[in-house]
């Protein structure tokens, strides 16, 4: 079942006052917004203003006919779900209405349950249509980004390597050997590694977006996987003369998620904290639970992030680039991937930073709850489970 949107709107058009009133009562109890109108003309105006998800319209009304209302509503927005109220045993008109674009019909007299059922079905259909539209838009954007990625990100290191080799060849022919020849070979190798990392990160991002990285949704204990990650990067930290510290509360940092995704998420934050640190500095990862959320902070003692860069930190390919200095190492995708994963899990990631002292990345994820069903959907019965750690 897809998640209900906040305050979906159902417009009711019926010339019968009692009908309008009772539909409104029943549907408002479902948490819906229900503007009502007594004829086709005002109803259409209402649809244009309210931009509803659904319209329930009586087919038999004076003035503009219900059938015309259907086509005019779809002129305004072809995605609006339309349910027609028909007279008893008026199957012909119902069929005609559906051929004209109505989603379903409700013959009078109908019970509140029947109305609720049909509205729920219609809204579900609407949610799915909107979601697939979002996916279509996203797919176009992904294609566009892919083209930029190939034409620019991948090309840049390739061009540098190519230029080095071209010049080497040229100078060879003229009998010269550039003084920095050995260094050039190392630079080419470094740029190749850069290419490989870019491609790997891009594939990870594609997997995250395509849901392929998300293999299974289980109860994961962050106080177990984070120390594992820290252990993996111990050599790298040692190399940079940075110490790693974990302050994770035991037995309560549980989240619903995929182990791979969570590993990638914290991997990126931790390697960044090591890379953008100073010799003798520390990386501290702390984790607690508060108000139904698992909060993990990854703090470094680096130079801090200038205010002007903060809005772009989680953008694709963003790397800090100070005037005159080389671009900071990395693919520029790590933080973007982490943010993507966090969003998919229904959480948030933010950063606090102070120039000269360092930065702290805050990851907040919904805490795993007993009441959640096996298929992963949340069942908010409104109970407050106490998840604060002792």
């Amino acid at each position, binding site marked *: 079942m897809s998640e209900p949107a906040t305050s979906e709107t159902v417009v009711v058009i019926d010339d019968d006052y009692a009908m309008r009133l009772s539909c409104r009562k029943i549907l408002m109890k479902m948490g819906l917004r229900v503007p009502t109108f007594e004829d086709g003309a005002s109803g259409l105006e209402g649809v244009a203003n309210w931009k509803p998800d659904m319209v329930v319209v009586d087919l038999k009304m004076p003035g503009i006919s219900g059938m015309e209302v259907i086509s005019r509503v779809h002129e305004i927005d072809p995605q609006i779900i339309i349910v027609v109220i028909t007279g008893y045993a008026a199957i012909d008109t119902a069929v005609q209405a559906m051929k004209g674009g109505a989603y379903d019909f409700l013959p009078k007299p109908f019970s509140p349950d029947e109305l609720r059922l049909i509205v729920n079905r219609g809204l579900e259909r609407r949610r799915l249509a909107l979601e697939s539209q979002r996916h279509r838009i996203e797919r176009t954007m992904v294609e566009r980004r892919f083209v930029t990625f190939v*034409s*620019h990100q991948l*090309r*840049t290191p390739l*061009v*540098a*390597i*190519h*230029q*080095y080799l*071209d*010049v080497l060849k*040229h*100078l060879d022919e*003229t009998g*010269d050997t*550039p*003084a*920095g020849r050995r260094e*050039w070979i190392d*630079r080419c190798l470094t*740029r190749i590694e850069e290419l490989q990392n870019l491609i790997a990160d891009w594939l990870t991002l594609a997997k995250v977006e395509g849901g392929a990285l998300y293999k299974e949704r289980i109860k994961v204990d962050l106080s177990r996987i984070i120390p594992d990650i820290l252990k993996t990067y111990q050599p790298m930290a040692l190399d940079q003369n940075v110490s790693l510290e974990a302050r994770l509360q035991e037995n309560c940092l549980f989240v619903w998620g995929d182990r791979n995704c969570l590993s990638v998420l914290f991997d990126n934050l931790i390697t960044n904290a090591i890379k953008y640190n100073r010799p003798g500095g520390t990386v501290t990862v702390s984790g607690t639970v508060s108000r139904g959320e698992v909060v993990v902070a990854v703090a470094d003692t680096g130079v801090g992030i200038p205010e002007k860069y903060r809005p772009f930190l989680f953008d694709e*390919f963003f790397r800090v*680039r100070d*005037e*005159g*200095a*080389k*671009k900071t190492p990395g693919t520029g995708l790590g933080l973007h991937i982490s943010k993507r994963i966090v969003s998919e899990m229904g959480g948030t990631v933010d950063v606090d930073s102070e120039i000269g002292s360092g930065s702290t990345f805050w990851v907040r994820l919904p805490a795993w709850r007993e009441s959640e069903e096996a298929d992963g959907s949340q069942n908010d019965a409104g109970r407050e489970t106490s998840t604060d750690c002792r």
Partner: protein
Amino acid sequence: MSAKVLLIDDDSDFRAAVKSLLEGHGYDVLEASSGHEGLRMVVEHKPDAILLDIMMETTVEGYGVTHSLRYLDEYIEFRHIPIFMVSSIEESPDERFPMSAEVEMIRPDRYLTKPLDIPELLRFLETAVGAAKSSMA
């Protein structure tokens, strides 16, 4: 006196390769890694030619440099310096970017593609610098 070429490109490897090449052919090579730095160096050193990367990543910064040198009064004494704009994309930039009318007016002396065709580059530079030198005689 050697001719001075200013290289403006944010990729240090590209600069290293081209610098070595040009120095091997008797040029004095200056480097800048950004548009701003590049403009400063033009004023300070008055090069005989400029090799300028489009710098797509920073909102096509390269065009900003060409525009400044060609249109702004403060750079009027540098207006004549030949500019070769370099990018790694084959098609003419006009076809790729929906440019404003203003930007369309910005024309460098030549568009070159990366990696640079070495004999071609050397030929263009020789002509450009030679022409500059003779016009100053």
